[in-house]
């Protein structure tokens, strides 16, 4: 198989292709509406929080773990922000405080996963419920909406006269940082190694537990940051902010070609996937496609993202073999 063909067969490439198709679809069916700056702005701002959380979650999934509690940490952050604001804290104090809180929430996940050796899926289903519950404990049925104007303006505003929303600019900066860490540093290499084979990583002297722990901490902090952005962007802090967002984020990461089994993936794929999802949903809504169809489209894309590579591989295999039988997976032996 030639280099080009392998590259073409990579799922990330397919994602880019689909993204282009989605843009083309939007542009041809909704014309100037779709291409207007304002619409670009709403595409980008709609995915702000998902995008921010998807960054650390990509790392976590590459490391063969998962964190389903992110949306609850986002909600808890919103709730605590509202609570502290009601209690007269200055916003300049609240932001660092909730980021620390998010990091602590992530640290609890990390401790349970690395020290007690619990499966992260189970742990974070537990903290998913617990953190959301704590959000209700903190803020109850209140909604806090009187955050200072300059902060909410930032959340809703655009960057230096462009149509790029401020939160998205924040995302771009973070994406560069995460991209470099994952793909160009020793930590990134370690994450890939432990995702593919944790034991071998340990035997190579990689501090698997420590790195995993910090991944959870960073994920918590980033989810918290997304919570801050969310609260500002909607000028509203409620305990139920971001309910159910975790599934969208996981969907985006997987759609971006990251293997749920760990050890494989590229951040660029994930970024393409979220642009794809945002663009497609926007283009469809502009064409008055209903919410249920959007749900179906999201789900189908996710299915496609895993079925596509697998089915093409199997078809290729069958063609090559010529005999058309499906071989059971074989333990590779040498």
């Amino acid at each position, binding site marked *: 198989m030639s280099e080009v063909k392998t590259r073409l067969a990579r799922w990330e490439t397919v994602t880019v292709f689909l993204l282009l198709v989605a843009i083309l679809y939007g542009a041809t069916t909704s014309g100037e509406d779709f291409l207007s700056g304002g619409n670009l702005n709403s595409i980008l701002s709609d995915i702000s929080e998902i995008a921010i959380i998807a960054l650390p979650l990509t790392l976590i999934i590459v490391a063969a773990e998962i964190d389903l509690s992110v949306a609850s940490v986002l909600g808890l952050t919103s709730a605590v922000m509202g609570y502290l604001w009601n209690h007269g804290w200055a916003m300049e104090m609240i932001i660092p405080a909730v980021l620390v809180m998010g990091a602590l929430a992530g640290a609890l996940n990390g401790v349970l996963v690395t020290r007690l050796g619990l499966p992260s899926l189970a742990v974070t289903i537990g903290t998913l419920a617990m953190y959301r519950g704590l959000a209700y404990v903190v803020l109850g049925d209140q909604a806090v909406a009187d955050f200072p104007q300059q902060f909410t303006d930032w959340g809703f505003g655009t960057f230096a006269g462009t149509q790029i929303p401020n939160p998205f600019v924040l995302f771009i900066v973070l994406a560069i940082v995460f991209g470099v860490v994952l793909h160009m540093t020793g930590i990134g290499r*370690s994450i*890939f190694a432990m995702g593919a084979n944790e034991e071998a*990583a*340990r035997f190579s002297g990689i501090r698997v537990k420590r790195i995993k722990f910090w991944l959870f901490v960073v994920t918590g902090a980033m989810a918290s940051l997304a919570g801050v952005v969310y609260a500002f962007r909607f000028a509203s802090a409620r305990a139920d902010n971001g309910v159910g967002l975790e599934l969208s984020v996981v969907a985006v990461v997987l759609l971006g070609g990251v293997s749920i089994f760990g050890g494989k993936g590229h951040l660029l794929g994930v970024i393409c996937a979220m642009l794809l999802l945002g663009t497609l949903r926007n283009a469809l809504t502009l064409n008055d496609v209903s919410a249920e169809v959007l749900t179906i489209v999201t789900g189908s894309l996710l299915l496609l993202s895993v079925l596509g590579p697998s089915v093409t591989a199997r078809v290729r295999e069958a063609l090559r073999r010529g005999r058309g039988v499906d071989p059971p997976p074989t333990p590779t032996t*040498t």
Partner: protein
Amino acid sequence: MTGSDSSVSIGFCCFEGEEPQINQQSTPAEITTPIIALKGASKSYGAVRASRNVSIELRAGEVRALAGENGAGKSTIVRMLAGVQRPDEGDVLVDGDVAAFHGPADARDVGVAVIYQEPTLFPDLSVAENVMMGRHPLGSGRRIDFRALNRTVKELLDRLGVKLDPEQPVKGLSIADQQIVEIAKALSFDARVLIMDEPTAALSGHEVERLFGVVRTLKERGAAVLFISHRLDEIFAICDTVTVLRDGEVTHDGRTADMDTDELVRRMVGRELSNLFPKLDAEIGQPVLKVERLTREGSFVDVSFEVRRGEIVALAGLVGAGRSEVARAIFGIDKPDAGTVTIDGVELKPGSPTQAMKAGIGLVPEDRRQQGLVMEMSIERNMGLTRLQALRNRLGVIGLGSEARNASDWATKLQLKFQKLSDPVGFLSGGNQQKVVLGKWLATGPKVLIIDEPTRGIDVGTKAEVHRLMSELAGDGLAVLMISSELPEVLGMADRVLVMHEGRIARELSRAEADEENVVRAATGQVAA
């Protein structure tokens, strides 16, 4: 089962209450049609042609060896005979007729039992269920009769002469015991053909003897056996005939009685091999690694020894004696309960591989697929994993091509056979994978290298190369701690031999004292240290 007790002997348990279908009279193997055979079989994995036009026949009452270097295509033949894979070209013949196996179940149905090279057990299930999976004895209402199941398996294990509880989950068994379960599994049904892909790799001499006993019984009963091993003495001990493979092709097919080890090796590697254990004398210096009273509950007790510059110390013993556990504890994978490890006089923090690496320890683990390598990662990245710090440039980022440079240096030094350094390491053959593991540790410039089973599952040619390397390294002043279950290797390579028995160092032998008898006696606990 009670009524048919007398008819049940090793290897022939008829759980369905039927009579064994084995041909009881031992007809001369030459005249009969082969029970199972491959005819002109070829098989490729992508670009790798693992099997080319291979023909091999297994006849009743015959034990046939399959010999060849790593990657020669032995396991591929096993997989085709077992119905795991179908040949791309050519056929599988059963009793002379073309058979289309659609899966392992089809092969099993015609009486083919297989012990695969890789363990194929279900860790969560009991020993008994592992042995009898899919063939549980049924009671009323087609429900499984667990009592009958456990009893049957118990009987089978007793006949194999092992004390294993059939109800115990496989999870907690040692590798050797797991291998025994594999063997029991293969023998548990009415097999006409028994195929064993390196069954002895994890077994001690005692257990190997037991296994051979079983094989002989089977042979007398008229079964055909295919036996694969890298230990050539075993081939000569048990096999009547041998098929030699090189690069996927059959290069020789004949009686073992008609050849000797040298010839076999020559046919396998296609060249003469002079010295299998080229241990050079090195200058032995100051102690580097010092282990004192190291203890880990349930694994080993009170282990103390030292290794000096330029010295190769072998840790010998039976499988399960706790040698690997000592290595893991020294390197910090496991935390010992008591005792200390010092390098050049500096005590290591227990349970920290990172610290051990900093202090200059390297560990080439026994299981290279699980512990040594990340299979889907490229060769260069695998080699770089131990040197992530060193590969950073000023910006803290891994520089473009720095991994490739690091890897290609060592690939050259170790004469690695590969296509591209960016290929997944899983593309390499076993021996070459082992070299990658060695390379990734040598790249760290260690003072002490612990090598656990340096040549497990490696063919003779590569073995010699690995030994040459170890010897050279010691010559350069490296302290080497070698764990090995192969006696010739221990005797040939070591300056000093530490023999472990049941978690303790039973005896220390100098190179001069170390001979086969001494080591075996100590390893089996016949002498106190």
